[in-house]
């Protein structure tokens, strides 16, 4: 399932890039992120994320790997996680383009494949929920980059 979107962030491209490639920063933006650790800097990370909406949630643990990095315009990552009876695989790509000195456009795609019990059970929710979670993520990224918030460590 391919979802995509774009977000305009009112910040210079370098600042957006630095933010989006900092696991601690983006970890704060991922809805339900419980833990993220760096296995190999700028390459491989491991985390636990509680994915879902309302009370319907699944706790996935898995790895994220940055597979392509073309500073400061493009990053491609692969994520693979498993939860009880289910698995999720994501290939996501972000493209940054300079709108002007103070604005950067982020176009993103995410190819999400959910397997196992969640796929069987929640197919009617999959597209809207993932789209919504992605929107929450990029909205949070935008807010934090624009206001320059440091991770609150919550």
């Amino acid at each position, binding site marked *: 399932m391919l979802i995509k979107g774009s977000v305009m962030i009112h910040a210079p491209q370098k600042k957006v890039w630095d933010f989006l490639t900092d696991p601690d920063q983006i970890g704060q933006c991922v809805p339900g992120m419980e833990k993220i650790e760096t296995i190999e800097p700028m390459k491989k990370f491991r985390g636990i994320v509680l994915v879902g909406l309302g009370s319907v949630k699944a706790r996935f643990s898995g790895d994220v790997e940055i597979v392509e990095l073309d500073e400061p315009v493009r990053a491609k990552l692969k994520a693979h996680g*498993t939860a*009880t009876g*289910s*698995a999720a695989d994501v290939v996501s790509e972000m493209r940054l383009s300079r709108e002007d000195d103070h604005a950067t456009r982020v176009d993103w795609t995410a190819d999400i*494949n959910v*397997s196992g*019990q969640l*796929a*069987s059970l929640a*197919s009617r929710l999959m597209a809207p929920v993932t789209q919504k979670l992605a929107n929450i993520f990029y909205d949070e990224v935008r807010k934090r980059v624009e206001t320059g918030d440091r991770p609150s460590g919550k």
Partner: protein
Amino acid sequence: MTTRYFGERIKRNEDPRLLTGQGLYVDDVDLPDMLHAAFLRSPYAHARINGIDASQALKREGVVAVYTASDLGDYWQPGPLLVSPPPVEGIVFNEKTQVPLAKDKVKFAGEPIVMVLAESRYIAEDALADIQVGYEPLASVVDLELALASDSIVIHEEIGSNVAAHVVQTKGDYESAKKDAVYVIKRRFSYEHGCAAAIENRGIVAQWDRRAGRLTVWDTTQAPVFIRNGLAGMLGLSERNVRVIAPFIGGGFGPKIMMFYQEEVLVPWAAMKLNRPVKWIEDRAENFVATTHERGQIHEAEAAFDKDGRILGVHDVFLHDTGAYAPYGLTVPLNAQCTLLGPYEITNYYSQFTAVFTNKTIVTPYRGAGRQHGVFVIERMLDLAAKELNIDRAEIRRRNFIQPDQFPYNNEIIYQDFAPLVYDSGNYEPLLDEALERIGYHKFVNETQPKLRAEGKHVGIGVVAYVEGTGIGPYEGAKVQVMGSGRVSVVTGVGTQGQGHFTSYAQIVAEQLGVSVDQIDVVTGDTDQFYWGAGTFASRGAVVAGNAINEAAKVVRRKILKLASEHFNAPEEELELADGLVKVQDLPRLSISLGELANMANPMRGAVKPGAEPGLEATEYFGPERGATASGIHAMILEVNPDTMQIKIQKYLVVHDCGKVINPLILDGQIHGGVAQGIGNAFYERLAYDENGQLLNGTFMDYHLPTSLDVPRIETAHGETLSPLNPLGVKGAGEAGAIPVGPLFAQALEDALYDVDFEILEIPLNSSRLWEITRANGG
């Protein structure tokens, strides 16, 4: 002989027990010290396994054992091939059967990888979450045509392609017959069947008695004898030391035939290894992915007609989805190939199929077992030809029927039982006439429908025909015995899953012995009670086991008459059997009960004469030369709301010929249940897979079975051409209701939505799909 039992609408013997909760089902078996199994199943349809870490699961309190493929040692073997490839020239057959636990690679979502045994099912399921499996996801083979493309990923690498089998069968010469055609029709049809969704899922309990060296297995199988033999072989036990009990089972429908499912071979193994009873009950989420499906075929079909609508020949090339493994051989595609011919005289036939491995749940027969797919193709082509040639739909069928004097009718190809496809008997026109009369076809088409259309209503009628090959061999056996109490015991090897065997079998014996049906105790599905047999499938219970029971009862009858004749010193011709007594004609006070006779046949003193056997007992076997062909017509009137594409079935009729009817009440029930499943197949049920081989609707919330509101009252009527292949003259009826419902829907829907030009070339439908089809064709 009186006819008080055979052929009567007798209420089912077993129902009081079932309705008051007295029936034993597998999950009712509760043994001291019993362990519970749960299985970790692959979420992926296709992935390599790079390691399994189950150490955390073993540490969980209450977990007793955790097994992966590597723990199974030599016991890890692919399951048996249940049906070997048919003797067809030039056949390609690549044997692949399921393994107990996936080892290096998983091939469908739901395939078991790890078995956990714990003190409760709760703990066992908790432990599944403790297990880490290193998956490396692979692209999945889902689409049948893409699966055969040269660049497709291959599921079974050692085969080198995704071809499971390739079979060509021909009769006459289609290409030359086509030259005489005035009309040739060519279409692409797709037909998908769903999952059986029996009310009871699978279940198995195994108990190992170490001192006696005996294994007892309660199993929801349709074929306990095969399971007994198979398990004995795998576990290195004597067949005499394995007892398989198939107790009451809440629906079989095919997927519970002797599959040697992964759980079915692992649970007894674990019980022996741990020396504790083990239970595994499949839950519904597992059932959707782990119990076999039937699913789909794509047919590229062509038919040639003369100007009168007579079929000159049919050419059909189709793909069959067999899933990740094919333990049941080619039964489903062979049924599709053969049943396409229907009740019609088709002298030229070319049929070719390719069975394709996909990363989906295994495909094996489910009620109808591929017959639906073939019937859909021929019935649709007749409808399209009728339209094109301006011939009435019923009439074009009538013109093509095989005539009564043509039986036995040889179709010259091989059927699923590997015998030539020869129809034993039939008379199709009277069935059609009766159906047209009962549904009011001519009045509806000529008067009612035009009136309704003028009122803006969209009401359509459909009439379709089909045959069903039933009652195939090899054989069944039965033991009939008169007890000292006068009750009669009947034991046979087949299992029972709701068919009413306890009554219909009793009726056969009652007829022979003059004992009322409620005095007869039928035992099925216990290998300690009857050693030999095949199982309940292919609409064969009444035909094969029924005739074995009849033969055994006849022998007991002879023994009764002989003994009573000696007792009364009266000739056998003057004796009659009635009310559990042997009476001397014209001397009403001279009678003896069967119980007393049974005791006399097993004396305490004196001697049994040389050559005689003690007791009033006989064991007989029956094996038909080949299957008996049942036939029928389904007709329906259906209304469609063109705004919402919701449907309402106004009338549903089945006129059916299954030879001699043992119990019309039970037969009606069989037909009703089949039609309900057919309606589900046509308009409600769909196994929705995504491109990664994920089943997207693995719950009853999203897999829509028709409910009592969606299934109308079903009217039935019966023709009767006796099968010459068995003494009772019976044919099977188990699958009749389910087979032609798809094309019936298609025809009636096209008729109802008369103001839109469209063709239905696929099943299943639903409101959304129907709307899209009508729109795509300019609606």
